């Protein structure tokens, strides 16, 4: 848990330095959940859950068809262009521009 807090702090600092707005936590969400991050802020080996996609409909549909829809758990196999995620038994490669538009919630479970 400590590691998680540190990670979030580092991520939030980076967001502030980049003058980019930190994604706002929805009011309905329980306050104990971590803030959604961009996928590009995760490191290799991280596990996370897809929270939201900011993609065109056809791109979102393709991701869903590949098994990556809101709520799906995945593991980051490779960080950086291309991003490689493992969703169940499927390995999905994503260009940086796609990864930037995926908001995820880090999953603490190994």
């Amino acid at each position, binding site marked *: 848990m400590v590691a998680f807090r540190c990670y979030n702090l580092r991520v939030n600092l980076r967001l502030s330095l980049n003058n980019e707005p930190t994604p706002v936590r929805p009011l309905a969400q329980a306050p104990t959940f971590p803030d959604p991050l961009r996928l590009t802020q995760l490191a290799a080996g991280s596990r996370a859950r897809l929270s939201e996609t900011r993609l065109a409909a*056809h791109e979102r549909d*393709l991701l869903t068809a590949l*098994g990556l829809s809101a709520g799906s758990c995945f593991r980051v196999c490779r960080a*950086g262009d*291309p991003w490689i995620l493992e969703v*169940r038994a*499927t390995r*999905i*490669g994503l*260009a940086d521009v796609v990864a930037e538009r995926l908001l995820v919630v880090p999953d603490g479970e190994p």
Partner: protein
Amino acid sequence: MSPAPAATSPLAEPPAATAPSRDPLRIALVGNPNTGKTTLFNRLCGLRAKTANFPGTTTDARIGRMSLPTGRDVEVVDLPGIYRLTLDLPESRVCRGVLGGEGFYRRPDAVVAVLDATNLARNLHLLGEVLAKGLPTVVALNMVDLARRRGLTFDAEKLSRELGCPVVPIMARKGEGTEQLLGQLAQVAAATAGPRPLTALPGLGTEAGLERWADGVVERSLGGTHAVGAGADTLTERLDQAFTHPILGVLLFTLVMAGLFWTLFALAKVPMDLIEATFSVLGGWVAAVMPAGALRDLVANGILGGIAGTVVFLPQICLLFLLISLLEDTGYLARAAFVMDRILCRFGLPGHAFVPLLSSHACAIPGILATRLIPDRQDRLTTILVAPFMSCSARLPVYVLLTGLLFEDRPLLGGLVFAGCYLLGGAAALLSALVARRSFLAGRSRPMVLELPSYKVPSLRTAAFVAWDQGLEFLKKAGTTIMAICVVMWWLSAYPVTPPPPQALALEQRAATLAAADPAEAERLRGEAALLAARTAQAGSYAGRLGRLVQPVFEPLGYDWQLTVGVLTSFVAREVFVSTMSVLLVGSDDLDPEDRGVLDRLHGATRDDGTLLFSTAASASLLVFFVLAMQCLPTLAVTRRETGSVKWAALQLGYMSALAYVFAFITYRLVLALGGS
């Protein structure tokens, strides 16, 4: 693991007593990409298959024939690999159309859904959509061997009960389980039941419902969703890290591509030389057997030349598709696409475009055919339009000839300019793609989202089928057009037959009188007579007349009528420029562009006004023109076929010709301004 007939499914009912129908049973093969669907198709149908387009689309349809153990004929349609029926992609639209029996399509009698046993949950999403169509379905659970190695076990009977249709575990690559699959299909053929009731699979109408259903099936029949594919694959992890690494990935990609093209050139050269030699012998035989006249010329030069001009491409095309198929089967191509995407996306091209663009260095025709790898239509169109800018092997003799003429005594500079031609072509392709994506094909290349398939040992059998199919398709579709074009261009260059001029006849007479006394001089005179006769024939032909007519258009580029004829005839194929120049200036069509003696004669060749034909400015202008111009009618025929419209071929011709003209003009003026001759 034995096949599991579904006890609750109407498909498993005993064969009806009715007489079998004479109509072939129509079966559609459906499945996700990389599930081994095409491997199964090849196992079932072998060479009894043909490739066509689905009506109204450019999507490939493979239709094969086979017989069931009962003797019933079956027509198998290999549908394109899709993730979901509902996606807004051409392949998904085709599958929806075929399964729904819409428009041109006849609704299949049954469906064989090929599922990847190592990734069942995701594959079930598509199966759920297929089952919702209400067609009798048999599930072929493929790659069970791979799944077993990952520690997964399946209860086919349980799965069959869950799905309400027969489930047959198979290993399509080894052919195991196909007999049982055929047995199940025989039951389907005999079944009289109509479409399945949809109520058997509740909740499939929504995304969440489909997911719940798929997870439930896996949970109940396989002991939990995490059982599937949970095993860590460290080799895959390591290979992915290496193949997609920003530096190592590029190095490995360069090595793989160098190996691919070396193999392509090395292996294709032998059959290509054999084909050329065979047609040369055939032409000689026809010339010897048939009486002299127009018919003999048509058969020996026009028709045989046209067939040779088509068939000679075949080894390169078959080999290219064989090698690409092998590479694709290994799982490497998906990783390589990401490596190239980093560079190509800046120019509006997708990472998938690298294979077509690289292939175009051999020949634009297989390059354009290879664009079928590109999923997005806009991306594919852009790649097709710019592929012919890449310097193909047909440009090679022209580059050798012109750089040899330009830099006679400066081979290093000649080499640099030669390499510059390749760079100029590549730069023109990338910049033109950028222009296209900012204007008439506006938009960015589709960001890469790709499934990275498991690494596998490629199947030579599947690759051979792909190569065979593509070769046949090329011969049937593009080949006929190419042959017709070659025949027409031959006719334009050969007719009307112009008799030799009086000077040539006089030289022949002098040679005849000197034959005994001075054979060497007689031979020289005969050579001069042949040159004069060939020049007169070329100038008098329709192509020659057209050259003189069109010459004012090329005047600003520094070309006289002879160079204009060379440029016009090279629209058949670029290398024809060399043979035309050879006929016009040397008197033989067998010119070696690296022969110093011949180069000297070309260098000294003059125009009608006595000035040098290959002046520095005109040669440089020609070189730029040949790098950029769309002088390949066979390529245009393939563009028309692959895009499904003549307008893209016309745009390609117009755009590239205009660009070539403008840059050749600038080059000509620039060289003159810098003091060149």
